């Protein structure tokens, strides 16, 4: 099958992958670049587990063609923060018990990150709308919304980045 080279900047690092014309960004990230933090929940754009930030916007990687990402910047959950230097959102999710099985978490945290970057001061309704593309079957969403609210408050205070995780 014919493949095409694409260059994508994943979490700050340029990477090259050979992809087919029909290949989704999700398959390219998982199968070619081993970005297993991007989860595949339905491959149909329904569940949001594969959400990544592509050129500043949260998208379903399963509904994006890999070639569409050529030359662009992508943030996955690993780009939001690391164990050593977690984002306030990540800390807040752990502290609020906003994770149960964890499978939706990579998509939810990335959606929340995109939301807070666009709107650092969202109200509850905006938070609920901001993650409405992400299904979570475990939590009933309550603690997720609380965690995002708390992380946003943290961001406004401008502290937290250097606190102990």
């Amino acid at each position, binding site marked *: *099958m014919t493949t095409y080279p694409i260059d994508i900047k994943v979490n700050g690092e340029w990477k090259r992958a050979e992809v*087919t014309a029909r290949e989704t960004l999700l398959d390219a990230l998982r*199968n070619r670049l*081993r970005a*297993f*933090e991007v*989860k*595949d*929940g*339905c*491959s*149909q*754009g*329904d*569940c949001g*587990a594969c959400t990544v930030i592509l050129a500043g916007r949260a998208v379903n990687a399963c509904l994006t063609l890999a070639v569409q990402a050529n030359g662009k910047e992508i943030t*996955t*959950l*690993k780009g939001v*923060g690391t*164990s050593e230097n*977690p984002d306030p*959102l*990540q*800390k807040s*999710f*752990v502290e*609020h*018990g*906003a*994770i*149960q*099985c*964890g*499978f*939706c*978490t*990579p998509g939810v*945290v990335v959606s929340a990150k995109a939301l807070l970057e666009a709107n650092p001061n969202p109200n*509850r*309704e905006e*938070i*609920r*709308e901001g*993650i*409405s*593309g*992400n*299904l*979570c*079957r*475990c*939590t*009933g*969403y*309550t*603690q*997720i*919304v609380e965690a995002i609210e708390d992380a946003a408050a943290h961001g406004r205070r401008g502290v937290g980045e250097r606190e102990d*995780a």
Partner: protein
Amino acid sequence: MNDDRFDVIGRVTRRQDGHAMVTGRQLYSSDISLPNMLQARVLRSPYPHARIAAIDTSEAERLGAVCITPEDVPRVKYNERQVSVPAKTYRDRTVLPDKVRHVGQGVVAVAARTEALADRALDALDVEFESLPAVFDPHEAMRDGAPQLHDAVLLGETVLPIERNIACYREAVEGDVARGLEEADLVVENEFTTGRAYHGQLESKAVVCRPEADGGITVWATAQSIHNTRQLLGSLFDIPLSKINVQRVPIGGSFGSSIQMNSSVAVCVALALKAQKSVKLVLTREEDMYDHCKYPSNIHLTYGVKRDGTLTAGYLKTVVDIGGHNIQAYPLLGCMAGWFVSLYRLPHLKFEGTAVYTNKAPACAMQGYGNPQVTFAVESMMDTIAEELDIDPIDVRLKNYVGLGETFWGQGPTVRSVIRSCGVEEMLLKGKAMVGWEGRGSSTSKTGRFRRGIGVGRGFHTSGTGAPTPGEVIDYSTAMVKINEDGSVDCLTALMCHGGGTLDAGAKMVAEELGVPLDRVGISPSNTRSTGYDVCTHATRGVYCGGASLLRAAQDVKKILFDFASRIIDVNPDALKVRPDTSRGQGVVCLPGAPAKRITVAEVAKTAQIKGWGSIIAVVSHRQVNCPPCFVVNFVEVEVDTATGQIRPMRAVAAVDAGTVINPDLAAGQLEGGLCRGIGLALLEDTTYKPDTGELTCGGYLTDYKVYTAQDMPSLEDLSTFFADTYEPSGPFGAKGVGEAANNATAGAVANAIYNAVGIRLTEAPITPERVLSALTRDAEQLQQGR
């Protein structure tokens, strides 16, 4: 909620796997990637009922794919679920079938180097089906002349002929129902149904199998029981268990969806053994939806009741549409009897349950195992009784509920024990005040397009399936606890965490018992070769049963710790205590009142190692002899749009009596999640089938199988949770379960809230806008005719 009796139990602590989850380092079965691994795909039946006339794999093999057909797999008949004792296990399936019994059933499997190649091989397969007449309704399936799905199955080792598609039947009788109904001042009767909801766990099922050089296999699978998976694979493929290693892998949501060894596991193993290469098989969402669903219910319920609200008799008759295979219908019917009998006292009772094969996806356990279905019917009826007798619905419940000191059946007629902790009254009364029950008004006082109503639902689940004597269901756990040479602790068990914090709860119990700071207690990776048997993480048993096994192992370890410490500091071991010293980050063994007689746990363990006394380690197999009820109460407020039939949940109070709560924030999360799924069962979720083709009407797409998003749930300020203040004497540190209880009472509460809003009793769940509108129209017509 901090409990002064404990150092870590009942305190909010961070889950151990939390950081891996939020930083993308948590890997599930579908994330496992091995060198030279082949990707598998399965050809599935487009017919609901068909004989397989011919299979040609030559073209697929020419493309380089490894193929397996029904001819290539063991012919052993098995049941995916291994929880009942063998004599009570119905076996009706093989790894690949000779006849398909539902759309989506796997027939041939291929494995190739890439997913794209596997897809091409799949397209190249040539399978000829001989379509057979199919049946989708359980009542039709029981009629003479209906298409027969199975001629015979195995029950244990006995061949059991199947007649009229009845997979099994169960009955329970106490007293004389006819007499009980005669003694009643009021007899109420109604019929209730609930849908075949889909688990909708976010991770679609996946499995990886690696054949090993010694003829064995290593398996990573989406599974709730690694040991049952191992035992089944051993018997199917005739491999000694010592050569089968099933790894515990984090599970991306469960709700019962992997309570059995999923059919894809055996298919993947068969491919890997044939290819002699690692093989990975990940179900698509569509395949996953055709794999399993919740047991639906059709319940006919009759109660007799005295004028003062005292029940005199109850009679529940149910027909369960189990789909193409019998996974666990027999214990299900026993449990449905147990749920019915244990909710309210019945001097005379009768239960009749019939499980029927149809040409649909096989039903299996899904959060509650028949309990939300039964409780929906029972709780709806409690409100009907209250209405008829003009008694407050809460008072009817308080008058009749099975509580402290009474015998309950828990998991069915053979699992009886006495209730030793009960927070029902506390939860009903506190919830009543919180929700503003007195101000809810009656439906007759409500007018306008949008009408609000408040309803109550009460329920319970058992904590595990333990009985005073081992019965037809197996239930025990094995745990190992070890104090390391630096004073830290390893906990090893085959128990799973489905997300609710089960393993964290176990670690907290060990930390509490050993007086070691929680951050020094680790949960070890686990597989079948290094752990003793654990039946399954199901039946809300994780904390109560699995936790108890860890606690007992910790108690044994503590004895060794004190024995070694006594040798070093020269005191009687019986007088020693161990307490966490957070400033040193260590547990400290001490003699109370003697400051000189202190030694850290690390010093004891290191000394024991150096002096050759041995490791501080213990392994325990533990069986709980109770399965105490974790009671639950839900109050739900809904708004009914009488113009569209749309129902919106507006407000809820959810409470659980879980005994001592180990992880308060995670337990609250369980309540919130359970409520969400319970509302889904009440209002939204069902898998329906096209009558002409036997296909799912949603097509296997989440787009058309709606589940709630964050925007659909009551918002934070409108959702309250609380815990009853109880202590379960038989539980580890007084704990019971939460899990399934969380969604058992919800559908009933929602139906009662709708009644309170519009005065119409809706008995078919999901209560869709169409059903609401047609009920409203019917009601209006009757009203007009009445005039």
